């Protein structure tokens, strides 16, 4: 089960959605990172409030999905996570943007499944990398404590 936390997919999704120079869908003062995962896409600025015409929402979702992917590739050095076309990724992202009940965390999960960030290995998604990082950080902290103990 995908968890909203400070990994590449979640941070990248948050930055692209929030950034003034990117999609500018909300202010970080209103929706801090820790609370963003549960926010529904239908509450963001891009989702129309005066119509629920399915055709209009569909073209809008493709437009914003493409722009979302464009910002991701500009800011982060990303590649595809698995075989397929960019068009399929845009279609999948558009389907999430078209569903007002989907959350920002679900969008980040899709990013995690389809897009690889620079520090991910060939067989691991970003969430697996995040778990692998934790033990190293604990080891480093233990090493620091041992060093501090010796110095006293």
């Amino acid at each position: 089960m995908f968890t909203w936390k400070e990994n590449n997919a979640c941070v990248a999704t948050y930055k692209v959605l929030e950034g003034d120079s990117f999609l500018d869908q909300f202010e970080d003062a209103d929706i801090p990172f820790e609370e963003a995962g549960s926010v529904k896409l239908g509450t963001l600025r891009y989702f129309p409030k005066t119509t629920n015409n399915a055709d209009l929402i569909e073209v809008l979702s493709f437009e914003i999905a493409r722009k979302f992917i464009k910002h991701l590739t500009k800011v982060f050095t990303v590649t595809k996570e698995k075989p397929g076309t960019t068009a399929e990724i845009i279609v999948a992202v558009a389907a999430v943007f078209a569903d007002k009940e989907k959350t920002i965390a679900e969008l980040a999960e899709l990013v995690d499944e389809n897009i690889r960030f620079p520090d991910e290995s060939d067989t691991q998604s970003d969430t697996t990398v995040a778990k692998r990082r934790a033990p190293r950080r604990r080891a480093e902290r233990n090493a620091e404590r041992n060093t501090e103990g010796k110095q006293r």
Partner: protein
Amino acid sequence: MNTRTILLAIALMLPSAAGAQAPSLKPTFDFKPAVLDSKDGAGTTLGLEYALKLQRPLTTFGSDANSNSLDPSTLVRQLAVSLDSRGVVTPEAARNPRNFLEFNGTLGALVSTATAGTFGVAAKVGYEADQSFISKQLVYGGTATYGKITLLGANDFLGLTTSYVQVDPTADTVRAFTLGATGAGAAELEQYGRWSVEGLYMAPISIGPVRALELNVRYYTELSAPDAIKRAKLDNHVLGTIRLGLTNDIFVAYSVGSLPFDRNDDHVYALGWSYKLK
């Protein structure tokens, strides 16, 4: 100015019934309660605005399968079938200022480009009715849709959708009365062509407390309408809405006009506050 109706939209973001969906079959649900207070003597009533959609992509065409890189400029082409429905319902149909329900099935193709926007065309079969299903009609024809983000400014959006359909009024009491068709004749109303357009423009702005602007216009016109229909002003329907999003999640909205099956224009004012349930 015929009828003034105050619409207090309470956007409470009720939990959705959508649940988990398979990747190729994605139902989406949207239910929004509304309190309608008609000053035309109908009192106050609770309404429910809904939109349902079930879409199944048939195939997606892309050109960079052999590349590991992401190409956000790639051309996207897709074929899909979908079912959708939308409308507003109230406990008593007579109090419903938006008494028009739509049920549609479409087979469509979509092309999304990097700079020229996204285009969609579809063949459509639909069923339209008032809330009580006393007036109802079949429609079949085609639609064309276009949308472009960042058209005039950063992150603004312009969308246009137009359709031409042949309307088969299986039971339209207002039309039958207007044309003088009664009894068996009421059930044999002739088909007619209808052209409709809906436009949407959204833009983030920063003027005082205003943070967002949204404009929506829906226009329906009957082609070659009989004189009786024209005299009764049933051949054209226009509904326009303007919504301003303010700071602190407050919004104000105003809409004026009518939809098919509406006999009177309604002026609807909305003042609301969006609250995000976590």
